[in-house]
């Protein structure tokens, strides 16, 4: 009797928790057979469970191609359910665009499938995945319960990729991290830009090389000028039918680099750099103040070193 009561209590607790850990994912079509899940323009919190990221999928003739798996096992599981609500076809391939945790910690939900990424993304996930997961657990709490790192198994290379009856073009870039994969779906004209492009949210820079990033943005913008291009899906923020988010990301990065360079040349100390106000054009950009603070920490030491030579 006592045991039964305990089971009942656990079941109730489980039910309450499950309701509390619902990401509310619902697939949004951006083109025929191409869908995305749009995250919030926020920092990681225990309220959003890490759902600040965009993921997506392409319903191909012979199965579903999944692009990024979100910040947790739960997210990956709920993503699979939401995909199943759109198509009966099974996922056949998961691609991780880069080695940041909000893009690969849902991999576990796709175990058994081929999981593919650029070689240095695979190395990055293998080396830093657990540390990233711990950090995200600290920021987003129990949403991540049960989440473990699943390292991609298949190395991708730039160029055409025929998969499940679909023709993808893989564009291997870098700058946001050491390896950033953009994916162009020729049939729909949708460009998945990964975290090289942010829309309506200040970009994150923990592994950024701004010079490389700006070069990558130029390449992405060239893709949006192709005749068949229809939609840009940024890594964070709303999809657009144009290159506006690329220009927005470029404007932020250009300002950030120039501002840190000038500050270092002027002899400012890191605390003084942190205290500088954002320019009016970025003052209302979501999470601009917190991303600026982080970026000073990530990027100012190098700017400083250059100025001290």
């Amino acid at each position, binding site marked *: 009797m006592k045991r039964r009561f305990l089971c009942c209590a656990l079941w109730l607790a489980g039910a309450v928790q499950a309701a509390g850990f619902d990401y509310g994912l619902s697939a949004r079509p951006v083109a025929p057979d191409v869908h995305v899940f749009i995250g919030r323009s926020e920092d990681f919190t225990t309220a959003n469970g890490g759902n600040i990221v965009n993921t997506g999928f392409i319903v191909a003739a012979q199965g579903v191609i999944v692009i990024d798996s979100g910040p947790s096992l739960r997210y990956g599981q709920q993503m699979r359910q939401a995909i199943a609500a759109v198509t009966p076809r099974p996922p056949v391939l998961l691609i991780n665009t880069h080695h940041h945790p909000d893009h690969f910690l849902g991999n576990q939900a796709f175990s058994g499938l081929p999981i593919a990424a650029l070689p240095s993304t695979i190395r990055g996930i293998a080396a830093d995945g657990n540390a990233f997961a711990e*950090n995200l657990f*600290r920021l987003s709490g129990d949403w991540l319960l049960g989440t473990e790192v699943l390292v991609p198994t298949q190395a991708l290379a730039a160029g055409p990729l025929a998969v499940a009856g679909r023709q993808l073009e893989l564009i291997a870039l870098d700058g946001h991290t050491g390896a950033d994969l953009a994916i162009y779906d020729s049939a729909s004209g949708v460009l998945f830009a990964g975290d090289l492009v942010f829309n309506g949210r200040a970009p994150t820079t923990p592994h950024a090389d701004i010079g490389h990033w700006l070069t990558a943005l130029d390449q992405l913008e060239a893709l949006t000028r192709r005749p068949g291009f229809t939609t840009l899906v940024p890594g964070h923020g709303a999809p657009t039918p144009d290159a506006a988010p690329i220009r927005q990301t470029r404007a932020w990065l250009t300002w950030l680099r120039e501002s840190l360079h000038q500050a270092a040349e*002027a*002899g*400012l*100390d*890191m*605390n*003084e750099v*942190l205290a500088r106000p954002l320019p009016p054009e970025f003052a209302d950009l979501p999470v601009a103040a917190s991303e600026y*603070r*982080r970026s000073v*920490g*990530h990027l100012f*030491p190098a700017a*400083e*070193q250059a*100025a*001290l*030579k």
Partner: protein
Amino acid sequence: MKFPLTMAAIALAALMPPADAAALQESGDPLASARWGEMQKAFLAGQQVLFDPRVKVSAPSTAENPLQVPVTVDATALSNVREVIVFADFNPIVQVLRFYPAGSGAYLGFRVKLQQSTPVRAAVRTADGLWHVGGTWVNTVGGGCTAPSAAASSPEWQQRLNEVSGRQWSEGPASGRLRLRIVHPMDTGLVAGTPAFYLEEIAFADAAGQPLMRLQTYEPVAENPVFTLQRGALAGPIEARGRDNNGNLFQARIAP
């Protein structure tokens, strides 16, 4: 309960702006740290202490990177500063650095490794023997002292150990400023298999050998330390000499 100020403090308060004078405090830690009593015993035992708003310690209230938390100590509002001790109540290694301004102002910018959220404080001794204490809380995610240095994963530092880069500014808003960077892992000894290996002493002097500032550094100073000093009116090149706890020496000349 706020205890009445001593005569020395009252005399001081009379010379200060009213807002600062009102903030003077001889007991009752304004940062409400459970470790203040221990800190006082360790660094300032038996000496007269005054919490003084003229000792400005700046640091981000939330430090994004616990391995590189920027701290600026500015005690230039006090005259006749002889010694400044910087410590962090809840760090596994509490003492961060000490500096002794001579020709320079009582001002130092640097970065520190923090293991957990903690007050970061500066205790400033003036010529009359009184300790003026200021500080600020820094919240951080932790792990700064037990994380391996970047140098631990790359052998590059071995070729560049104690390499110094520096610059002086003679115009603009940072006029009178000197900044210096030294390549050093600053290992705390708290990472298994990596012994403590850190800079211990740096002395700054002008070309004639007149001392500008002497600096004693400890394990919590961040890897590849960067220091910001106010050299004041002094002109000409500045010599920096120092050594680490393994006896490695460095010497550099920073052109004006």
